[in-house]
């Protein structure tokens, strides 16, 4: 069999985190009753006119600057004409001729090494509504709440050649955009949508093969599977002497299979032309500089700072900076308790564990750095022991309670009473002769069991140092 290389370019749609829609003042909040976040503009009523939300331009500019794009200072919007019921005007206001950002790049790193991925352009546009097919009534309904929610579309150059690189590129974009606060970038909820353009060619070939566009990719795992599947499909076609058809395909992740949606032949002519209802957006140097000056510290810089200023191990810094929310909590909590490594341990350990248990994203964390810091300090100054601390933290995580008051109220302070504890230890030794014998036979694990029994008898509040000390003395 011949050797093939894969050529991949991505089109990434990102829903921007503005409070209001791109061309009207309706709320962008997710989950309202159908057609409650609507007005004449976003439902395409006759005579209504769009007015551009400046925040959309700022977010798009910020993403462009962070991805090393050239910002187009004289911007225009264009109409993309096509008929579909989720599109109330039957045209989408987008940018074709003068997109806001061009010629950018982001650096990625995979096992294959470092690589620069080009960004062809980033443009602003409006989202469509949502069609709901009612099987019961055999009809379709439209919800225009999402109609007019602002999007940016980030179009990469065909610079990627594996699923690893695609994931690394998407992770990089997600982090940049989350750090900017421009979007939460959730694939599952559709605030980040990825279309994969893929072709294969023989190693060393000068021209790209025919590409397909894959849609409906709702997770990184699905993206990786779809890429592998499509690569194989195209190679098989070529090996059989057939050719790849330029078409749009839809990925079905449950069946791990894609099918053709439409081919290039029935591609629509969108009849783009400049949107006459909007005036050109002029971004002057001052505005550009203002947006630039608001640029946050991005992940790489933050990571280095955590390693250098807080002496965090690279492993810790890597995990914490993977989510801006974690980094924010880390910094604020450390500011209060001045114990960076302890904060990091709690974040990487208990916090991650609880997030996983509850199937939550770091963005959904609700506890405050103040209460988090209190838990750490309670352990640090010996008020509670580590076991109790985990229980207290769980409550803080769930309800953001004040741990000082909670420990006081529930009587969870550590038991440092040596006389009382000695009595308990004596009872434990008397009740577990086998373990005592094991200990004397050199089985070190036995002492752990005895400590555990003592803690249990002391309702978890015993000072483990004291318990250890007494045990060793008595044994």
């Amino acid at each position, binding site marked *: 069999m011949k050797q093939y290389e894969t050529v991949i370019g991505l089109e990434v749609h990102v829903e921007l985190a503005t409070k209001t829609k791109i061309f009207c003042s309706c709320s962008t909040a997710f989950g309202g009753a159908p057609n409650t976040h609507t007005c004449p503009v976003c439902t395409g*009523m*006759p*005579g209504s*006119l769009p*007015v*551009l939300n400046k925040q959309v331009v700022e977010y798009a500019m910020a993403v462009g600057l962070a991805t090393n794009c050239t910002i187009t200072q004289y911007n225009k919007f264009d109409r993309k*004409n096509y*008929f579909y019921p989720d599109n109330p005007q039957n*045209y989408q206001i987008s940018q074709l001729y003068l997109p806001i950002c061009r010629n950018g790049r982001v650096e990625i790193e995979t096992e294959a090494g470092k690589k620069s991925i080009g960004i062809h352009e980033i443009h602003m546009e409006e989202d469509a509504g949502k069609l709901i097919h009612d099987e019961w009534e055999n009809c379709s309904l439209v919800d225009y709440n999402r109609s007019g929610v602002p999007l940016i579309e980030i179009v990469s150059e065909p610079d990627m050649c594996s699923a690893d690189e695609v994931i690394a590129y998407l992770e990089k974009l997600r982090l940049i955009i989350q750090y900017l606060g421009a979007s939460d970038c959730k694939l599952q909820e559709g605030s980040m949508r990825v279309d994969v353009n893929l072709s294969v060619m023989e190693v060393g070939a000068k021209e790209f093969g025919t590409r397909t566009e894959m849609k409906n990719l709702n997770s990184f795992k699905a993206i990786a599977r779809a890429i592998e599947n499509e690569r194989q499909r195209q190679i098989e076609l070529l090996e059989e002497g057939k050719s790849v058809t330029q078409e749009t395909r839809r990925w079905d992740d449950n069946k791990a299979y894609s099918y053709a949606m439409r081919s290039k032949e029935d591609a629509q002519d969108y009849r783009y032309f400049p949107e006459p209802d909007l005036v050109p957006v002029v971004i002057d140097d001052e505005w550009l500089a203002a947006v630039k000056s608001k640029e946050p510290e991005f992940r790489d810089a933050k990571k280095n700072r955590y390693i250098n200023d807080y002496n965090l191990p690279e492993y810790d810094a890597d995990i914490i900076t993977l989510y801006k929310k974690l980094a924010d909590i880390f910094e604020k909590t450390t500011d209060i308790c001045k114990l960076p490594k302890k904060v990091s341990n709690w974040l990487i350990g208990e916090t991650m564990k609880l997030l996983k248990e509850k199937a939550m994203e770091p963005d959904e964390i609700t506890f405050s750095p103040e209460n988090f810091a209190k838990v750490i300090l309670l352990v640090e100054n010996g008020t509670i022991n580590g076991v109790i601390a985990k229980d207290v933290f769980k409550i803080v995580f769930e309800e953001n309670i004040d741990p000082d008051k909670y420990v006081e109220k529930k009587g969870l302070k550590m038991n440092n009473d040596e006389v009382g504890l000695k009595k308990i230890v004596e009872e434990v030794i008397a009740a577990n002769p086998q373990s005592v014998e094991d200990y004397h036979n050199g089985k070190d694990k036995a002492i752990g069991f005895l400590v555990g029994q003592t803690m249990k008898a002391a309702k978890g509040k015993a000072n483990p140092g004291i318990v250890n000390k007494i045990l060793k003395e008595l044994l």
Partner: protein
Amino acid sequence: MNIMSLTAVELGKKIKQKEISVEEAVIAALDSIEAKDEAVGSFVTVCRDKAMEDAREIQGKIDRGELDGPLAGVPVAIKDNMCTEGILTTCSSKILSNFNPAYTAEAVLNLQKAGAVIIGKTNMDEFAMGSTTETSAIKITKNPWNQEHVPGGSSGGSCAAVAAEECHYALGSDTGGSIRQPSSFCGVTGIKPTYGTVSRYGLIAYGSSLDQIGPVAKDVTDCATILEAISSYDAKDSTSVKRENYDFTSALVDDVKGLKIGIPKAYFEDGLDSEVKAAVLNAAKVLEKKGAIVEEFDLGLVNFAIPAYYVIASAEASSNLARFDGVKYGYRTSEYEGLHNMYKKSRSEGFGPEVKRRIMLGSFVLSSGYYDAYYLKALKTKALIKKEFDKAFEKYDVILGPAAPTTAPKLGESLKDPIKMYLGDIYTVSVNLAGLPGISLPCGVSSQGLPIGLQLIGDCFKENNIIRAAYSFEKSMTYNRCDMAKQFD
């Protein structure tokens, strides 16, 4: 006293002085519509009950001193492409025959704030596409001067209603001459303001980059007064312009001494009716006698305006009218199979032939492979035409010419030859392409007894130059009322 023979400003004064009540004025207008509209056909909707209700409310406000503007209590007719909350807004199209807007157009709101009483909605060419009001899917409007003739279009209903004295004034919209040409045909006065002066919010778009709302009235004083009331900066319309001033009535001065008036030679060549030519050139003489400096000059690209206009307006219309699809509001076909068949049948049945022609033309010029050759070229032509006017306005304050090459054609003559109908827009479309203000006012009557219109064009934001020239000219003319209006005296 015949209330309907008054101008809007005269009536406003009498209402203010309590000589006439708002209710009396509204009843007079409703009676006049009752008596004449079967013959004229200006109105597609008459708001009898609502108008009477509003009349009492506005009278109360006037009595309490809450309203004291010049138009308080004066009845108005609105072209049926402006959204009016709770009042059918059809664009004279089957596809919107049942459309009741949830909001009112900004320009109409401005009038309501000034105390206007909406008496009804006027007929128009379907979606403002046409020059005779004959493309209306609802009814035919006739020229009140001679009912065998068209009133012009597309604001034919508004202009006929004012000419027949069914209302005191009306709002029209002008994309390529739709206020000025029917004003000329009906012997009334109409202004198309500088693009961006009157908010387009709530005006159902035909050619978004060209559309402007403007007044139609009996004289220049009324027009300036109405324009002052409807103009405003509107944040809801991105193309709305914050003007330095919105004072148009201060230009109502009978003095043109030193005013420089240019006459484009190309406007008086082949194709211009000799009677129209004579009347328009006579108007230039009158202004010259009053002290204006009048001279001929060469205005370039005159013949490129019509093709550029029809490409741009149709392109925008093909997209603007895409929303009428039977999904959300308006007409939906009764039987269909699947989505695309529903679209196809609803639009095929809902739109008339002229609208379909322009949608097809517009879709064609925007389609891939043709965009550069047609649409882009038309945009470049538009920019060059603007430059030609800029050059002219370095030398002149006002450009004078006809509003239309002929007087009103007979009913049924125009639609047979659409190209010929399009060519009739030669004097008006370039004004829209360049975004300029223009006024059309009566300057004579033909041997057939049909009115002839004079057009004065100003530089952007210089409405006051054309208002002053028009007012001065009007002072030297006697206003001709049509027989249909006179018969109720």
